[in-house]
Protein backbone atom coordinates (compact mmCIF):
# COMPACT_ATOMS: atom_id res chain seq x y z
CA UNK A 1 0.00 0.00 0.00
CA UNK A 2 1.22 3.49 -0.87
CA UNK A 3 0.24 4.87 2.52
CA UNK A 4 1.68 2.05 4.65
CA UNK A 5 4.34 4.41 5.92
CA UNK A 6 1.64 6.54 7.55
CA UNK A 7 0.63 3.69 9.85
CA UNK A 8 3.90 2.87 11.60
CA UNK A 9 4.22 0.08 14.13
CA UNK A 10 4.44 1.05 17.81
CA UNK A 11 8.14 0.14 17.71
CA UNK A 12 8.75 2.50 14.80
CA UNK A 13 6.77 5.23 16.53
CA UNK A 14 9.02 4.92 19.59
CA UNK A 15 12.10 5.64 17.47
CA UNK A 16 11.22 9.32 17.14
CA UNK A 17 9.78 10.39 20.48
CA UNK A 18 7.56 13.43 20.95
CA UNK A 19 3.78 13.62 21.08
CA UNK A 20 1.48 15.51 18.80
CA UNK A 21 1.87 19.29 18.98
CA UNK A 22 5.13 18.69 20.85
CA UNK A 23 7.15 20.87 18.49
CA UNK A 24 6.64 24.13 16.65
CA UNK A 25 5.84 22.51 13.29
CA UNK A 26 2.09 21.81 13.77
CA UNK A 27 1.54 25.28 15.20
CA UNK A 28 3.48 26.90 12.38
CA UNK A 29 1.57 24.97 9.74
CA UNK A 30 -1.70 25.71 11.57
CA UNK A 31 -1.05 29.47 11.47
CA UNK A 32 0.04 29.30 7.82
CA UNK A 33 -3.10 27.34 6.98
CA UNK A 34 -5.30 29.86 8.81
CA UNK A 35 -3.89 32.74 6.76
CA UNK A 36 -3.98 30.67 3.56
CA UNK A 37 -7.65 29.76 4.09
CA UNK A 38 -8.70 33.35 4.76
CA UNK A 39 -6.84 34.66 1.71
CA UNK A 40 -8.00 31.78 -0.51
CA UNK A 41 -11.64 32.21 0.56
CA UNK A 42 -11.39 35.95 -0.08
CA UNK A 43 -9.84 35.37 -3.49
CA UNK A 44 -12.48 32.81 -4.45
CA UNK A 45 -15.26 35.13 -3.27
CA UNK A 46 -13.80 37.97 -5.35
CA UNK A 47 -13.58 35.67 -8.36
CA UNK A 48 -17.15 34.52 -7.67
CA UNK A 49 -18.34 38.13 -7.45
CA UNK A 50 -16.67 38.99 -10.75
CA UNK A 51 -18.21 35.89 -12.33
CA UNK A 52 -21.70 36.75 -11.12
CA UNK A 53 -21.42 40.35 -12.32
CA UNK A 54 -20.07 39.20 -15.70
CA UNK A 55 -22.84 36.62 -16.09
CA UNK A 56 -25.45 39.17 -15.01
CA UNK A 57 -24.54 41.68 -17.72
CA UNK A 58 -23.30 39.25 -20.37
CA UNK A 59 -26.26 39.86 -22.72
CA UNK A 60 -27.29 43.28 -21.55
CA UNK A 61 -26.77 46.46 -23.57
CA UNK A 62 -27.81 50.09 -23.39
CA UNK A 63 -28.86 52.46 -26.14
CA UNK A 64 -28.18 56.10 -25.35
CA UNK A 65 -29.65 58.89 -27.46
CA UNK A 66 -28.06 62.15 -26.50
CA UNK A 67 -30.53 64.48 -28.18
CA UNK A 68 -33.62 63.51 -26.30
CA UNK A 69 -36.78 61.55 -26.21
CA UNK A 70 -38.22 62.31 -29.64
CA UNK A 71 -36.47 59.40 -31.33
CA UNK A 72 -36.74 57.03 -28.36
CA UNK A 73 -39.82 55.13 -29.66
CA UNK A 74 -38.25 54.60 -33.12
CA UNK A 75 -35.08 53.27 -31.54
CA UNK A 76 -37.05 50.84 -29.34
CA UNK A 77 -39.03 49.62 -32.34
CA UNK A 78 -35.85 49.17 -34.41
CA UNK A 79 -34.20 47.19 -31.62
CA UNK A 80 -37.24 44.97 -31.13
CA UNK A 81 -37.33 44.19 -34.85
CA UNK A 82 -33.93 42.42 -34.72
CA UNK A 83 -34.09 38.65 -34.14
CA UNK A 84 -32.63 37.60 -30.78
CA UNK A 85 -33.65 40.73 -28.89
CA UNK A 86 -35.60 39.45 -25.89
CA UNK A 87 -36.22 42.81 -24.28
CA UNK A 88 -35.95 46.45 -25.33
CA UNK A 89 -37.48 48.92 -22.88
CA UNK A 90 -37.02 52.65 -22.56
CA UNK A 91 -36.07 53.72 -19.05
CA UNK A 92 -38.68 56.25 -17.86
CA UNK A 93 -37.29 59.76 -17.41
CA UNK A 94 -38.58 59.85 -13.84
CA UNK A 95 -36.54 56.81 -13.00
CA UNK A 96 -33.44 58.38 -14.52
CA UNK A 97 -33.94 61.59 -12.56
CA UNK A 98 -34.57 59.64 -9.37
CA UNK A 99 -31.28 57.82 -9.86
CA UNK A 100 -29.41 61.03 -10.60
CA UNK A 101 -30.94 62.75 -7.58
CA UNK A 102 -28.88 60.50 -5.32
CA UNK A 103 -25.73 62.00 -6.86
CA UNK A 104 -26.71 65.51 -7.96
CA UNK A 105 -29.38 66.48 -5.46
CA UNK A 106 -32.79 68.16 -6.17
CA UNK A 107 -31.50 69.86 -9.33
CA UNK A 108 -32.02 66.59 -11.16
CA UNK A 109 -35.38 65.74 -9.60
CA UNK A 110 -38.88 66.04 -10.99
CA UNK A 111 -40.34 66.12 -14.48
CA UNK A 112 -39.33 69.21 -16.41
CA UNK A 113 -36.23 69.96 -14.34
CA UNK A 114 -33.58 71.99 -16.13
CA UNK A 115 -30.99 69.22 -16.42
CA UNK A 116 -31.25 67.68 -19.92
CA UNK A 117 -31.12 63.88 -19.93
CA UNK A 118 -30.41 61.45 -22.74
CA UNK A 119 -32.91 58.77 -23.59
CA UNK A 120 -31.85 55.41 -22.27
CA UNK A 121 -33.06 52.03 -23.57
CA UNK A 122 -32.29 48.75 -21.82
CA UNK A 123 -31.72 45.89 -24.27
CA UNK A 124 -31.33 42.20 -23.54
CA UNK A 125 -30.25 39.69 -26.16
CA UNK A 126 -30.73 35.97 -26.28
CA UNK A 127 -27.49 33.96 -26.05
CA UNK A 128 -25.90 33.82 -29.50
CA UNK A 129 -27.71 36.89 -30.81
CA UNK A 130 -25.65 39.37 -32.80
CA UNK A 131 -25.30 42.73 -30.97
CA UNK A 132 -23.84 44.38 -34.10
CA UNK A 133 -27.12 43.73 -35.94
CA UNK A 134 -29.01 45.55 -33.18
CA UNK A 135 -26.57 48.46 -33.25
CA UNK A 136 -26.89 48.75 -37.04
CA UNK A 137 -30.69 48.59 -36.96
CA UNK A 138 -30.91 51.32 -34.32
CA UNK A 139 -28.34 53.57 -36.02
CA UNK A 140 -30.28 53.29 -39.28
CA UNK A 141 -33.28 55.00 -37.71
CA UNK A 142 -31.43 57.12 -35.12
CA UNK A 143 -27.88 57.87 -36.32
CA UNK A 144 -26.88 59.61 -33.09
CA UNK A 145 -27.73 56.57 -30.93
CA UNK A 146 -24.90 54.87 -29.05
CA UNK A 147 -25.07 51.13 -28.50
CA UNK A 148 -23.01 50.18 -25.40
CA UNK A 149 -22.38 46.73 -23.90
CA UNK A 150 -22.92 46.79 -20.12
CA UNK A 151 -19.86 44.53 -19.78
CA UNK A 152 -17.70 47.26 -21.34
CA UNK A 153 -19.10 49.77 -18.88
CA UNK A 154 -18.19 47.49 -15.98
CA UNK A 155 -14.79 46.53 -17.40
CA UNK A 156 -12.77 48.67 -14.95
CA UNK A 157 -14.56 47.12 -11.95
CA UNK A 158 -14.21 43.59 -13.34
CA UNK A 159 -10.53 44.26 -14.05
CA UNK A 160 -10.03 45.36 -10.45
CA UNK A 161 -11.81 42.24 -9.15
CA UNK A 162 -9.68 40.03 -11.40
CA UNK A 163 -6.49 41.76 -10.26
CA UNK A 164 -7.46 41.30 -6.59
CA UNK A 165 -8.20 37.62 -7.28
CA UNK A 166 -4.78 37.21 -8.90
CA UNK A 167 -3.13 38.91 -5.91
CA UNK A 168 -4.96 36.55 -3.54
CA UNK A 169 -3.76 33.55 -5.61
CA UNK A 170 -0.21 34.90 -5.48
CA UNK A 171 -0.41 35.30 -1.69
CA UNK A 172 -1.68 31.71 -1.37
CA UNK A 173 1.27 30.55 -3.50
CA UNK A 174 3.72 32.56 -1.37
CA UNK A 175 2.23 31.10 1.83
CA UNK A 176 2.63 27.61 0.34
CA UNK A 177 6.27 28.38 -0.44
CA UNK A 178 6.79 29.77 3.08
CA UNK A 179 5.19 26.60 4.49
CA UNK A 180 7.56 24.48 2.42
CA UNK A 181 10.53 26.51 3.65
CA UNK A 182 9.33 26.13 7.25
CA UNK A 183 9.02 22.36 6.75
CA UNK A 184 12.59 22.23 5.38
CA UNK A 185 13.88 24.04 8.47
CA UNK A 186 11.77 21.91 10.83
CA UNK A 187 12.95 18.72 9.13
CA UNK A 188 16.60 19.76 9.33
CA UNK A 189 16.07 20.56 12.99
CA UNK A 190 14.51 17.14 13.57
CA UNK A 191 17.42 15.49 11.73
CA UNK A 192 19.90 17.28 14.00
CA UNK A 193 17.92 16.34 17.10
CA UNK A 194 17.82 12.67 16.11
CA UNK A 195 21.31 12.49 14.57
CA UNK A 196 22.41 9.85 17.09
CA UNK A 197 19.42 7.62 16.36
CA UNK A 198 19.97 7.98 12.61
CA UNK A 199 23.65 7.03 12.95
CA UNK A 200 22.73 3.93 14.94
CA UNK A 201 20.04 2.94 12.43
CA UNK A 202 22.42 3.41 9.50
CA UNK A 203 25.11 1.50 11.34
CA UNK A 204 22.92 -1.57 11.75
CA UNK A 205 21.81 -1.54 8.13
CA UNK A 206 18.73 0.69 7.91
CA UNK A 207 18.18 2.01 4.41
CA UNK A 208 17.64 5.69 3.66
CA UNK A 209 13.99 4.94 2.91
CA UNK A 210 13.48 3.29 6.29
CA UNK A 211 14.91 6.34 8.05
CA UNK A 212 13.02 8.74 5.78
CA UNK A 213 9.69 7.05 6.46
CA UNK A 214 10.03 7.87 10.18
CA UNK A 215 10.44 11.57 9.49
CA UNK A 216 7.95 11.91 6.67
CA UNK A 217 5.28 10.22 8.78
CA UNK A 218 5.92 12.61 11.67
CA UNK A 219 5.87 15.69 9.42
CA UNK A 220 2.80 14.44 7.52
CA UNK A 221 0.83 13.99 10.75
CA UNK A 222 2.06 17.32 12.13
CA UNK A 223 1.00 19.03 8.88
CA UNK A 224 -2.35 17.28 8.73
CA UNK A 225 -3.25 18.04 12.34
CA UNK A 226 -1.86 21.59 12.26
CA UNK A 227 -3.37 22.31 8.84
CA UNK A 228 -6.80 20.95 9.73
CA UNK A 229 -6.88 22.92 12.99
CA UNK A 230 -5.83 26.14 11.21
CA UNK A 231 -8.44 25.55 8.51
CA UNK A 232 -11.21 24.93 11.05
CA UNK A 233 -10.38 28.13 12.95
CA UNK A 234 -10.28 30.04 9.64
CA UNK A 235 -13.68 28.60 8.65
CA UNK A 236 -15.20 29.67 11.98
CA UNK A 237 -13.68 33.15 11.74
CA UNK A 238 -14.87 33.55 8.13
CA UNK A 239 -18.38 32.47 9.05
CA UNK A 240 -18.53 34.80 12.06
CA UNK A 241 -16.85 37.84 10.53
CA UNK A 242 -17.66 37.68 6.84
CA UNK A 243 -20.58 35.26 6.61
CA UNK A 244 -23.23 37.99 6.77
CA UNK A 245 -21.62 40.30 4.26
CA UNK A 246 -20.91 37.43 1.84
CA UNK A 247 -24.57 36.48 2.03
CA UNK A 248 -25.64 40.06 1.33
CA UNK A 249 -23.37 40.30 -1.69
CA UNK A 250 -24.68 36.96 -2.86
CA UNK A 251 -28.27 38.24 -2.58
CA UNK A 252 -27.39 41.41 -4.48
CA UNK A 253 -25.76 39.48 -7.33
CA UNK A 254 -28.54 36.85 -7.42
CA UNK A 255 -26.13 33.98 -6.83
CA UNK A 256 -23.62 32.42 -4.50
CA UNK A 257 -20.14 33.92 -4.31
CA UNK A 258 -18.62 30.53 -3.43
CA UNK A 259 -19.62 27.53 -5.52
CA UNK A 260 -19.46 23.95 -4.30
CA UNK A 261 -16.21 23.49 -6.21
CA UNK A 262 -14.76 26.49 -4.33
CA UNK A 263 -15.83 25.04 -0.99
CA UNK A 264 -14.33 21.67 -1.93
CA UNK A 265 -11.07 23.37 -2.89
CA UNK A 266 -10.98 25.18 0.46
CA UNK A 267 -11.73 21.93 2.30
CA UNK A 268 -8.91 20.21 0.38
CA UNK A 269 -6.31 22.83 1.33
CA UNK A 270 -5.23 21.13 4.61
CA UNK A 271 -4.79 17.85 2.76
CA UNK A 272 -2.84 19.57 -0.02
CA UNK A 273 -0.67 21.27 2.61
CA UNK A 274 -0.01 17.91 4.29
CA UNK A 275 0.97 16.38 0.94
CA UNK A 276 3.25 19.34 0.21
CA UNK A 277 4.85 19.09 3.66
CA UNK A 278 5.35 15.33 3.28
CA UNK A 279 6.98 15.62 -0.13
CA UNK A 280 9.23 18.44 1.07
CA UNK A 281 10.17 16.57 4.26
CA UNK A 282 10.95 13.40 2.30
CA UNK A 283 13.21 15.23 -0.15
CA UNK A 284 14.94 17.09 2.68
CA UNK A 285 15.66 13.90 4.64
CA UNK A 286 16.82 11.98 1.58
CA UNK A 287 19.11 14.84 0.53
CA UNK A 288 20.58 15.04 4.04
CA UNK A 289 21.11 11.28 4.26
CA UNK A 290 22.77 11.14 0.86
CA UNK A 291 25.40 13.54 2.19
CA UNK A 292 26.44 10.80 4.63
CA UNK A 293 28.02 7.43 3.92
Amino acid at each position, binding site marked *: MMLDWLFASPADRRLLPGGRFAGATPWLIGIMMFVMMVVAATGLALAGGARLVREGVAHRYSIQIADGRSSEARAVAAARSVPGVTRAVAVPEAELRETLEQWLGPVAAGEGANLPLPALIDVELAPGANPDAVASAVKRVVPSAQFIADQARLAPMLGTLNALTAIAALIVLLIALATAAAVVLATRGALDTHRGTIDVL*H*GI*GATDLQVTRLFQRKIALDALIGGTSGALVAAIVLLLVAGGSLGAVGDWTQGSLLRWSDLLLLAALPLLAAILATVVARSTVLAALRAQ*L
Partner: protein
Amino acid sequence: MLRDLDFRLGAGQFYFLTGPSGAGKTSLLKLLYLAQRPTRGRISLFGTELTDAPRDQLPDFRRRIGVVFQDFRLVRHLSAFDNVALPLRVADHAEADVEGPVREMLAWVGLADRASAKPPTLSGGEQQRVAIARAVIARPELLVADEPTGNVDAAMAKRILHLLTALNRLGTTVVVATHDLGLIAATPGSQLIRLENGNLVDPTGALRNPPASMVRA
Protein backbone atom coordinates in the same frame (compact mmCIF):
# COMPACT_ATOMS: atom_id res chain seq x y z
CA MET B 1 45.79 7.68 9.87
CA LEU B 2 46.30 4.23 8.41
CA ARG B 3 49.12 3.57 5.95
CA ASP B 4 49.65 0.78 3.50
CA LEU B 5 47.63 -1.85 5.34
CA ASP B 6 47.36 -5.12 3.49
CA PHE B 7 45.69 -8.03 5.21
CA ARG B 8 42.91 -10.56 4.88
CA LEU B 9 40.57 -11.79 7.56
CA GLY B 10 39.94 -15.49 7.51
CA ALA B 11 36.30 -16.48 7.55
CA GLY B 12 35.24 -17.78 10.94
CA GLN B 13 38.46 -16.66 12.65
CA PHE B 14 38.87 -14.74 15.90
CA TYR B 15 41.12 -11.69 15.84
CA PHE B 16 42.30 -9.30 18.48
CA LEU B 17 43.26 -5.85 17.26
CA THR B 18 45.84 -4.25 19.51
CA GLY B 19 48.16 -1.33 19.55
CA PRO B 20 48.81 1.82 21.54
CA SER B 21 46.24 4.61 21.69
CA GLY B 22 46.23 6.56 18.44
CA ALA B 23 47.65 3.65 16.46
CA GLY B 24 44.60 3.60 14.21
CA LYS B 25 42.50 0.78 15.72
CA THR B 26 39.24 2.73 15.66
CA SER B 27 39.90 3.94 12.10
CA LEU B 28 40.48 0.36 10.98
CA LEU B 29 37.29 -0.78 12.72
CA LYS B 30 35.34 2.00 10.99
CA LEU B 31 36.57 0.72 7.64
CA LEU B 32 35.51 -2.79 8.64
CA TYR B 33 31.98 -1.84 9.66
CA LEU B 34 31.57 0.43 6.63
CA ALA B 35 31.27 3.69 8.52
CA GLN B 36 34.06 5.15 6.46
CA ARG B 37 35.55 4.67 2.99
CA PRO B 38 39.32 4.48 2.52
CA THR B 39 40.76 7.64 0.96
CA ARG B 40 42.87 5.32 -1.16
CA GLY B 41 43.37 1.61 -1.48
CA ARG B 42 40.70 -1.07 -1.65
CA ILE B 43 38.45 -2.86 0.78
CA SER B 44 36.49 -6.04 0.16
CA LEU B 45 33.97 -7.66 2.48
CA PHE B 46 32.16 -10.97 2.06
CA GLY B 47 33.84 -11.39 -1.31
CA THR B 48 32.58 -8.06 -2.67
CA GLU B 49 34.67 -5.07 -3.56
CA LEU B 50 33.11 -2.21 -1.56
CA THR B 51 35.59 0.62 -1.95
CA ASP B 52 33.41 2.51 -4.41
CA ALA B 53 30.17 0.60 -3.91
CA PRO B 54 27.06 2.80 -4.27
CA ARG B 55 25.82 3.78 -0.83
CA ASP B 56 22.43 2.15 -1.40
CA GLN B 57 24.23 -1.21 -1.51
CA LEU B 58 25.86 -0.72 1.88
CA PRO B 59 22.83 -1.43 4.15
CA ASP B 60 22.69 -5.05 2.99
CA PHE B 61 26.34 -5.52 3.97
CA ARG B 62 25.94 -3.64 7.24
CA ARG B 63 23.18 -6.04 8.25
CA ARG B 64 25.76 -8.82 8.04
CA ILE B 65 28.05 -6.98 10.47
CA GLY B 66 27.54 -6.59 14.21
CA VAL B 67 29.25 -3.67 15.91
CA VAL B 68 29.97 -3.02 19.58
CA PHE B 69 30.97 0.61 19.86
CA GLN B 70 33.33 1.81 22.55
CA ASP B 71 30.77 4.48 23.53
CA PHE B 72 27.91 1.92 23.17
CA ARG B 73 25.75 4.20 20.95
CA LEU B 74 22.51 3.05 22.44
CA VAL B 75 19.38 4.99 21.55
CA ARG B 76 18.76 6.85 24.80
CA HIS B 77 14.98 7.06 24.57
CA LEU B 78 14.48 3.39 23.74
CA SER B 79 14.33 0.61 26.32
CA ALA B 80 17.05 -2.03 26.52
CA PHE B 81 14.60 -4.39 24.81
CA ASP B 82 13.98 -2.00 21.92
CA ASN B 83 17.69 -1.28 21.54
CA VAL B 84 18.49 -4.99 21.27
CA ALA B 85 15.56 -5.53 18.90
CA LEU B 86 16.66 -2.80 16.47
CA PRO B 87 18.71 -4.98 14.07
CA LEU B 88 15.85 -7.48 13.77
CA ARG B 89 13.27 -4.77 13.16
CA VAL B 90 15.51 -3.00 10.63
CA ALA B 91 15.77 -6.35 8.84
CA ASP B 92 11.96 -6.42 8.75
CA HIS B 93 11.50 -9.42 11.06
CA ALA B 94 7.90 -9.92 12.15
CA GLU B 95 7.25 -8.61 15.66
CA ALA B 96 6.32 -12.14 16.75
CA ASP B 97 9.83 -13.27 15.81
CA VAL B 98 11.50 -10.48 17.74
CA GLU B 99 10.21 -10.95 21.28
CA GLY B 100 11.68 -14.41 21.98
CA PRO B 101 15.23 -13.93 20.70
CA VAL B 102 15.54 -10.51 22.35
CA ARG B 103 14.36 -11.82 25.74
CA GLU B 104 16.74 -14.75 25.39
CA MET B 105 19.66 -12.49 24.51
CA LEU B 106 18.92 -10.09 27.38
CA ALA B 107 18.80 -13.07 29.75
CA TRP B 108 22.10 -14.26 28.38
CA VAL B 109 23.83 -10.96 29.14
CA GLY B 110 22.19 -10.91 32.57
CA LEU B 111 19.70 -8.13 31.90
CA ALA B 112 16.41 -10.04 31.77
CA ASP B 113 14.99 -7.90 34.55
CA ARG B 114 16.19 -4.65 32.96
CA ALA B 115 14.45 -5.08 29.61
CA SER B 116 12.29 -2.00 29.98
CA ALA B 117 15.03 0.20 31.44
CA LYS B 118 16.34 3.03 29.29
CA PRO B 119 20.09 3.55 28.82
CA PRO B 120 20.43 6.62 31.07
CA THR B 121 19.18 4.50 33.99
CA LEU B 122 21.65 1.67 33.27
CA SER B 123 25.20 1.48 34.60
CA GLY B 124 28.12 1.60 32.16
CA GLY B 125 28.52 -2.16 32.35
CA GLU B 126 24.84 -2.75 31.74
CA GLN B 127 24.88 -0.42 28.75
CA GLN B 128 27.86 -2.30 27.37
CA ARG B 129 26.00 -5.59 27.69
CA VAL B 130 22.99 -4.14 25.91
CA ALA B 131 25.33 -2.95 23.15
CA ILE B 132 26.82 -6.44 22.86
CA ALA B 133 23.39 -8.06 22.80
CA ARG B 134 22.35 -5.67 20.00
CA ALA B 135 25.50 -6.48 18.03
CA VAL B 136 25.02 -10.25 18.13
CA ILE B 137 21.20 -10.61 18.08
CA ALA B 138 21.06 -10.96 14.27
CA ARG B 139 23.84 -13.58 14.17
CA PRO B 140 26.22 -11.43 12.08
CA GLU B 141 28.83 -12.93 9.79
CA LEU B 142 31.36 -10.38 11.03
CA LEU B 143 31.41 -9.01 14.57
CA VAL B 144 33.50 -5.93 15.24
CA ALA B 145 33.91 -4.90 18.87
CA ASP B 146 35.78 -1.88 20.21
CA GLU B 147 36.90 -2.58 23.80
CA PRO B 148 33.84 -4.71 24.60
CA THR B 149 35.00 -5.52 28.12
CA GLY B 150 36.21 -2.05 29.00
CA ASN B 151 33.40 -1.25 31.44
CA VAL B 152 32.57 -4.60 33.01
CA ASP B 153 33.98 -6.57 35.91
CA ALA B 154 36.16 -9.62 35.44
CA ALA B 155 33.29 -12.10 35.73
CA MET B 156 31.20 -10.28 33.13
CA ALA B 157 34.26 -9.86 30.88
CA LYS B 158 34.70 -13.63 30.99
CA ARG B 159 31.05 -14.12 30.17
CA ILE B 160 31.21 -11.69 27.25
CA LEU B 161 34.30 -13.40 25.92
CA HIS B 162 32.48 -16.69 26.19
CA LEU B 163 29.60 -15.23 24.16
CA LEU B 164 31.98 -13.95 21.50
CA THR B 165 33.79 -17.28 21.21
CA ALA B 166 30.47 -19.13 21.08
CA LEU B 167 29.38 -16.87 18.24
CA ASN B 168 32.75 -17.45 16.57
CA ARG B 169 32.24 -21.21 16.80
CA LEU B 170 28.97 -20.75 14.93
CA GLY B 171 30.97 -19.26 12.06
CA THR B 172 31.06 -15.55 12.82
CA THR B 173 34.36 -13.81 12.14
CA VAL B 174 35.20 -11.77 15.23
CA VAL B 175 37.49 -8.75 15.45
CA VAL B 176 37.95 -7.34 18.94
CA ALA B 177 39.96 -4.20 19.58
CA THR B 178 41.38 -4.34 23.09
CA HIS B 179 44.18 -3.36 25.40
CA ASP B 180 43.33 -6.24 27.71
CA LEU B 181 46.16 -8.78 27.37
CA GLY B 182 44.33 -11.10 29.78
CA LEU B 183 41.47 -11.29 27.33
CA ILE B 184 43.85 -12.27 24.52
CA ALA B 185 45.52 -14.86 26.69
CA ALA B 186 42.15 -16.35 27.59
CA THR B 187 41.25 -16.93 23.95
CA PRO B 188 43.30 -19.75 22.54
CA GLY B 189 43.37 -19.97 18.77
CA SER B 190 42.81 -16.26 18.29
CA GLN B 191 45.09 -14.21 16.08
CA LEU B 192 46.63 -10.85 16.70
CA ILE B 193 46.49 -7.78 14.47
CA ARG B 194 48.86 -5.20 15.86
CA LEU B 195 48.90 -1.60 14.69
CA GLU B 196 51.61 0.94 15.40
CA ASN B 197 51.45 4.49 14.04
CA GLY B 198 48.90 3.44 11.44
CA ASN B 199 51.06 0.57 10.18
CA LEU B 200 50.35 -3.13 10.45
CA VAL B 201 52.92 -5.15 12.37
CA ASP B 202 52.99 -8.44 10.49
CA PRO B 203 56.55 -9.78 10.60
CA THR B 204 55.59 -13.29 9.45
CA GLY B 205 53.25 -12.16 6.67
CA ALA B 206 50.53 -14.42 8.08
CA LEU B 207 47.92 -11.66 8.00
CA ARG B 208 48.73 -10.68 4.45
CA ASN B 209 48.70 -14.22 3.15
CA PRO B 210 46.69 -16.45 5.47
CA PRO B 211 46.29 -20.14 4.67
CA ALA B 212 43.94 -20.60 1.73
CA SER B 213 41.45 -22.56 3.82
CA MET B 214 40.85 -19.48 5.99
CA VAL B 215 40.25 -16.97 3.25
CA ARG B 216 36.80 -16.12 1.99
CA ALA B 217 36.90 -14.90 -1.59
